[in-house]
């Protein structure tokens, strides 16, 4: 058994390692709080890492729709004031009126459509350098480890949060991203017994978290809040809001 003294020493050392890896512990008031402990507890320091690159894997358009919505919802929780977001991709498929439901007015998003993957990478890096942006979302088919490292180094300087949407099918290489997510749709949530399609509901999988733990949970979005749904079958459809 470890003594409490050893415990604190180990914790302090762990924090130092995190600092070296780019997870700077910021003063409390500067931290951007997601306000959603259910997700945050899986990350180092119990804080959703901003100023890093998050990687989302989606291959089908159904999944892309959910992933986009989830990113929008995350961003709207992280940024309370109005800001500018950049979305870089091959061709815009997102439907701006549909995004408003997830907390971000679509006119705050600047869409950049580029053809070559090389150009998309370049534009992503340029955008990540721009400290005035609240978030950069980039649709990339594939990204190599070196490229992801380069982006990671960029954001460590600028503190912009980047989201990479990978549409690549087949095996996925390792990247230097802080976390790898996969969002897939699940049956919608009907709070009452009204018929029809209910609130958006997703299976959120944290496939990889640097210095954190992987997890899988069921999240629903309604009334501008994240809600978790207990997966146990004995409590069907009894969500409780953890959001602030």
């Amino acid at each position, binding site marked *: 058994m470890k003594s409490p003294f050893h415990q604190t020493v180990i914790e302090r050392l762990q924090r130092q390692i995190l600092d070296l890896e780019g997870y700077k512990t910021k003063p409390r008031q500067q931290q951007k709080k997601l306000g959603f402990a259910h997700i945050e507890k899986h990350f180092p320091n119990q804080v959703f890492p901003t100023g890093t690159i998050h990687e989302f894997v989606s291959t089908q*358009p*159904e999944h*892309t*729709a*959910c992933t*986009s*919505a*989830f990113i929008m919802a995350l961003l709207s929780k992280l940024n309370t*004031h*109005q*800001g*500018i977001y*950049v979305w870089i991709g091959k*061709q*815009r*498929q*997102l*439907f*701006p*009126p*549909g*995004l*408003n*439901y*997830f907390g971000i*007015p*679509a*006119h705050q*998003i*600047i*869409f*950049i*459509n*580029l053809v070559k993957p090389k*150009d998309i990478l*370049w*534009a992503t890096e*340029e*955008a990540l*350098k*721009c*400290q*005035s*942006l*609240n978030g950069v979302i980039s649709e990339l088919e594939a990204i190599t480890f070196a490229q992801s490292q380069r982006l990671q180094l960029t954001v460590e300087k600028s503190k912009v949060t980047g989201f990479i949407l990978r549409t690549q099918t087949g095996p996925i290489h390792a990247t230097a991203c802080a976390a790898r997510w996969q969002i897939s*749709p*699940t*049956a*919608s949530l*009907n709070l009452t017994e009204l*018929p*029809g*399609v*209910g609130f*958006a*509901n*997703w299976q959120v999988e944290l496939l990889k978290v640097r210095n954190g733990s992987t997890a899988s949970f069921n999240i629903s*979005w309604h009334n501008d809040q994240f809600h978790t749904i207990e997966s146990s079958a004995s409590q069907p459809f009894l969500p409780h809001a953890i959001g602030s």
Partner: protein
Amino acid sequence: MNKRYVSIWFPHLVTDQMAIRQKELDGIAYALVTHERNKQIIIGVSYQAKKLGLKPNMPLADARIILPSLQAFKYQPLRQQKLLKMLAEWFIRYSPNIALAPPDGLFLEVSGCTHLWKGEKPYLQEISSRLKKAGYHFKIAMADTLGTAWAITHYGENQIVKSGEHLQALLPLPTKALRLEENILQRLAKLGFHTIDSFIHIASSTLRRRFGEEINLRIGQALGHQPEAFETISEPHPYQERLHCLEPIQTAKGIEIAIQTLLENLCILLQKDDVGFRNATLKCYRLDGELQQISIGTNQASIHIQHLFKLFELKIKQIEPDLGIELFIMEATKVEALPKQQEALWQIQAQSNLSEVSELLDRISIKAGKNAIRRYLPQEHHWPEHSIKAVTDPQQLPETEWQTHKLRPTVLLNQPEPIQVSAPIPDYPPMNFTYKGQLHRITKADGPERIEREWWLNEGKHRDYYYVEDEKGQRYWLFRLGHYHSKIAAQWFIHGFFA
């Protein structure tokens, strides 16, 4: 079409201008003098002084004998040149092509210009009255060739030589009117040729033998057989910087330094006027006479040197220095008032510093074109394709609210794609559908939401939209085109994916 030229001669260019500047000189005799071998020599005289018989090249002492009250001023050689250039720029309002005829004349190419003043006569009258009002003494003529126009201004009467009649106009003029060199003139005088008509019909080979090739050239230019160079002055560019290189520049680093220097100078110029770049062009004049140029544009007026430099930097590759570049010229082709600078405090508090974002967009649009960048604003239309409006301006705000009371998909297909559906009629949602060869069983559904076409925009059938969810929990936006028909199968489409 025949070319038409106007020649204007200012015999008292500098002295006239002095009289315009200093009212007390108006109407009196004075002269410009310079020192030459211990003597004061008159270079230019005023109109009144000339009337009294004073001429250039006369010693000041002699002139003072004729007119003891003669005032003398020091001659500044650069002043005349500058003045002529200024006048030439002023004349751009009358013709786009102006050439200098140093030391004291101007040429205007007026082909196709005169009709704007309702003819050649009113055109010359307009110019004359403007110059007279300003206080200049001048002589003016219009002819088919530069040589004839020049000859008439210097040795003839003010007039318009009709097209094709320049030979007749030249005949009575003295030999000097052909702009010949002094030694040729002397030889002509020795042989008794005092006017042009006395020798112009002599065969050119004979003339050449006696007087050299130049006389034929000048006759040919006056008659229009020989071409004559017409070097137009360029329109003055208010925001332009030039950089001459001591040695031709060939390296990218050298070009970078040139751009940096030019930008620094030009930005100071722009800042004085409180304007910034919207478009800028860099012209590189190569040693072999070729011109290489690159242009940049910005989304917002900017005098941020580093940012502008980055924009140029992206394009340096397009310049081919070849043997080397000897002259760089940077022009601000379009300028705009600078946006109000935000307070430094504001930039720290609100993270959205718009100028930084627009600089980012500038860089991207330089590389990918302006069309690559889009923002979307809501439009008051129900038809999904019309409900958004693409804009490029990064600061434009929506005129109407985003509509959120009707659910809309997160991903919308550019074109609705046909699907196979089995649906109970009349208005029930489908039970299943096949999209891309995959069968989806529908478990939950909402709808229909009927969206009619706006008949004033496009014609066709309405759409009945259904929001459906399949057994995997994937959510889709489907629609049926038009009403059910007893004979024709209904057409179903998939149009979007919900989150």
